[in-house]
């Protein structure tokens, strides 16, 4: 295995200031390493990677990487990415979004990209909160949690993002935590190889807001929580809904084949010409 810091130097932009902007112990940094390792392992050339993000702490990830990158508007990363994929089909298009970015303002783009089966790998950083704007509740915030926008407890029930995109038609769906880093590298690698709309939901601690609001405290406590509460899909199938309360179900949830939007689009072009 190559050393991560060495690899990172090959892919980081030299014009950026380091250490990076994320808080101490924030899970997004661990994801950054995992993404770089998976891309390197997949043997893609830097010029063939197109990294697109929206706005949020997670949305800052592509800023640091020396690929083709596009930092778009909040919630709209998938719309830009769809255009890029259709115009330049040879590019490996990867989208990085936060839970708010992906499932709140960008929720419709998410489900319709999955339904359409556009050939894009989407990485959703689920820290269960709006990190960048100061800890407001997102569509994945647990019921009852007091947040900056729900001081008396959150009145809404959370989305299960992986199940949502499965139902919407994604051909590859996996969930991992940043604590289970080797599994994270592996599922990102699988998602990159997959043709069609692939999604990796990454559970990544927002230490500063989610940590404070849940009373979980330090980065170490939050990582330990992931360690203690992750359950593989296979095992989860035999567990009851009560037993699965507050657990993180991890692993590959969906891996199926379906014609991609681009393939069908190309076929129509040939036939109609």
């Amino acid at each position, binding site marked *: *295995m190559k*050393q*991560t*810091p*060495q690899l*990172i*130097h090959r892919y*980081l*932009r*030299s*014009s*950026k*200031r*380091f*250490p*990076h*902007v*994320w*808080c*101490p*112990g*924030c*899970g*997004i*940094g*661990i994801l*950054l*390493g995992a993404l770089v390792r998976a891309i390197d392992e997949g043997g893609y050339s830097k010029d063939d990677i197109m990294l697109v993000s929206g706005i949020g702490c997670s949305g800052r990830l592509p*800023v640091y990487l020396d690929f083709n*990158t596009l*930092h778009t508007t909040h919630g709209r990363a998938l719309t830009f990415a769809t255009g890029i994929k259709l115009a330049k089909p040879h590019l490996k298009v990867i989208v990085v979004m936060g839970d708010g970015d992906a499932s709140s303002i960008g929720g419709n783009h998410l489900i319709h990209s999955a339904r359409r089966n556009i050939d894009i790998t989407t990485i959703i950083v689920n820290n269960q909160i709006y990190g960048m704007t100061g800890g407001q509740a997102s569509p994945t915030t647990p019921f009852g949690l007091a947040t900056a926008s729900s001081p008396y407890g959150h009145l809404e029930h959370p989305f299960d993002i992986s199940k949502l995109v499965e139902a919407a038609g994604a051909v590859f769906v996996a969930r991992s935590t*940043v*604590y289970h*880093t*080797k599994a994270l*590298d592996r599922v990102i690698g699988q998602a990159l190889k997959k043709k069609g709309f692939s999604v990796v939901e990454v559970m990544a601690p927002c*230490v500063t807001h989610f940590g404070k609001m849940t009373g979980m405290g*330090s*980065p*170490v406590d939050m*990582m*330990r929580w992931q*360690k203690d509460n992750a359950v593989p899909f296979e095992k989860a199938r035999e567990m009851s809904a009560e037993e699965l309360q507050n657990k993180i179900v991890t692993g590959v949830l969906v891996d199926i084949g379906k014609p991609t939007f681009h393939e069908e689009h190309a076929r129509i072009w040939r036939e109609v010409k």
Partner: protein
Amino acid sequence: MDDHGSTGILLWTREAHGATILPGGSDRNCQMNRVEIFKGWCKKCGICVAFCPRGVLTTGDDGFPKVSNPDACTGCRWCELRCPDFAIVVQKDEHTDNA
């Protein structure tokens, strides 16, 4: 895309950032895995210390991780993989039977 308006310090080096190097450093003869911490990038989150399966690392008085028990290191790289800031690197000694 903004870049915080600054020139970056991309390459951390031992010299520039006061890395903790195990006894012997790079010219040591004995075979063992070497763990280096680059204080210039480390944010003292404690993750590497907490999850090293062999208790190789402790937190020093300055809050930075410290290699306190080098002989126990198996070169598993979990500290490196989980560091959010790429501030710790493991030089695995391929000949060690400490795996």
